């Protein structure tokens, strides 16, 4: 017995050794690939980050991709409160707050509307509800340029042209397709029996919503909030055209900085401005990223 085990032990070790090596090689390959892609993904961020600390003369001399030789913090306050955009030299902060005032209400309202509409279309089905869902879905695919003039006309007629409220309305309705899609597909996964039991118990439309649906919907609500916040924050065309002067969103400031036609490109201020402009959505993704995948696991991909 002991002879057998003694003689088979080295064979087992060899097997274990080979399996161990295979495992090590596969780990190296996996982490190697991850790092390779990681470098490509991070490179633009590094470039922008470093360039926001380099003086313009150094950037022009040494190219756009290099470690800072001189470290300067000037670009940041310049971008935030001193840079001249459209004749006013107050930097980006006004546009930043304009964007916040537009994006936060639009995100909240479109998410709420999407949740309720998704709830109805998944748990209170009626004749034609599938067709309505299909029609709303088409809204996901509409290109923006088509909607520009019709929206201008409608906003003009209801007196909301050139105001933040008008823009909030536009983004809510355009975002409704996405938010309804996400929420409905998620709620479909909630067992119908739960709802039926609640109705038998006498619970009404809103009661079921608050007691049953809402408590388990944080994942998809976070997905929706992330999606809407990012999309509306980064949107340029409608924000600029359906708005005026003092109310323009931050994307207008970014375009003013980056497409400066016949004047010098101020790469350092541009870098700082880009980082400031990207900060809110980046933070949203940073904190909500985990829920994004979790929420998608149960929604969107049906």
């Amino acid at each position, binding site marked *: 017995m002991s002879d057998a085990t003694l003689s088979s032990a080295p064979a087992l070790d060899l097997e274990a050794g080979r399996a161990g090596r295979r495992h090590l090689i596969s780990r190296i390959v996996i982490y190697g690939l991850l790092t390779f892609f990681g470098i490509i993904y991070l490179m633009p961020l590094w470039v922008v980050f470093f360039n926001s600390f380099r003086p313009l003369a150094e950037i022009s001399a040494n190219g756009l991709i290099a470690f800072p030789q001189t470290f300067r913090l000037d670009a940041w306050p310049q971008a935030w409160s001193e840079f*001249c955009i*459209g004749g006013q030299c107050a930097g980006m902060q006004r546009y930043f707050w304009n964007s916040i005032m537009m994006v936060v209400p639009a995100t909240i309202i479109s998410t709420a509307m999407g949740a309720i509409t998704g709830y109805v279309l998944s748990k209170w089905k009626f004749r034609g509800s599938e067709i309505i869902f299909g029609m709303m879905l088409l809204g996901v695919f509409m290109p923006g340029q088509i909607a520009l003039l019709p929206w201008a*006309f409608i906003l003009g007629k209801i007196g909301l042209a*050139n105001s933040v409220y008008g823009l909030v309305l536009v983004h809510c309705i355009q975002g409704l397709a996405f938010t309804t899609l996400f929420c409905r597909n998620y709620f479909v996964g909630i067992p119908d029996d739960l709802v039926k039991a609640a109705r038998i118990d006498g619970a009404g439309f809103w009661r079921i919503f608050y007691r049953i649906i809402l408590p388990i919907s944080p994942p998809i609500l976070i997905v929706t909030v992330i999606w809407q916040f990012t999309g509306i924050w980064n949107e340029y*065309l409608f924000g600029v055209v359906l708005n005026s*002067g*003092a109310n323009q969103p931050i994307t207008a400031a970014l375009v003013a900085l980056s497409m400066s036609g016949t004047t010098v490109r101020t790469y350092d201020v541009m870098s700082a401005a880009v980082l400031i402009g990207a900060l809110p959505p980046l933070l949203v993704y940073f904190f909500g990223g985990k829920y994004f995948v979790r929420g998608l696991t149960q929604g969107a991909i049906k």
Partner: protein
Amino acid sequence: MNFKSKVALGAAATITAALLSGTAMAEPKVLMLHQWASGNDAASIAKLGEMFTAKGGTWEQTAIAGHTANTLAKLRADVVAGNAPAAVQLKGPEIAEWAATGGTADMDELATAEGWDAVVAPELLPVMKPQGKWVAAPMNIHRINWIWGNKAAMESVGVAELPKTWADFNAACDKAIAGGKVCLAHFSADWSDATTFETVVYGQDIDLYRKAFVEGDVEALRSEGMIKAFEQMKLMVSTYMDPAIAGRDYDTGANMMSNGDALFFIMGDWELGRLVSIGKTPGADILCGQSPTDWGGNGFILNSDSVVFFNQNNPDFQEGQKLLASTILSPEFQSVFNIAKGSIPARLDVDLTQGFNACQQQSQAELKGSIEAGTLVRSMAHNMTVLQKYRGAMMDTITEFVNSPEMSAEEAANIMADAVEAQM
């Protein structure tokens, strides 16, 4: 300024003040829509705002960055919403198109009171008065057909002066190449390629320029003369410019000339504004001259920025428009604005010896000479002649030609003619 003009000015000011204070209770305010959102241009518009405010008006502006298309999109959105802005930066044939929609305001009363017809350059009048009535106020006159030369670079390769004809230009360039320098600084964008090309066409054959680029005649676009112009352009692109013109921005391209890496640069007079802002002395370090012209004599390709006024219901805006128009055409504004920008005033009676540099003074002198000689034309590349749909077709072909070494001159001429014809 002499006594007589002082009196005239004083009289005009009094009448204007009377007109403006006519609707006594209205407080003039204006909302101006324009595309000069950053840099020098924005600073110049800020000056307009300051002068407007100094005269008692409330100034508001919407500056839309990026392409002109964004500003025009906003204008359309506003008009469709029923909210046309009081003042918009528009130019060229678009002024006529918008006037034809009936939405523009009639500034004749103010124009007559201030005597605009007498002082504004005659070539601009049909543009500002498309249906016989004043609807726009010109801010400046830009000259397109300038060639800029770096004096030190030129001397280092043995070129004594700026070339006068295209044959001179080619000869000078051959010397530049022999001396190891780039001859012509350039950056490829649809408008800059078109700018260079139209100076070639204008310089070779002014009648061809008129027929092809002002009237949009398809046969002229297809003609032998046009093929010859494309051939000159091909020579320039392939040999006299450096290979990296695509994707380069204005500043980098222009710096090649001002640093001495290249001898020449063909560009409109806003280059003057840039040169002055980087500390060069026009006329001394950097020479300015009329771009090469084979038929000798004064030539001038004109571009003009202007502000169009749209009908307003609110009397405050109506007053504001009049105040703004009056401010724009005032000699003070015309001086201050144009000194900074590098262009010359739209009024011919402003004295350029106060604060304008040598090249600007030369520009005005040559403008007057060109008017007398009958060689003054407006610029196609800068949207002063044909409708945008034709201009777009022409510029697409020109920029494609510049970026396609395998396209022949004859092909290019035919493609351009076909493209314009397809839009008719």
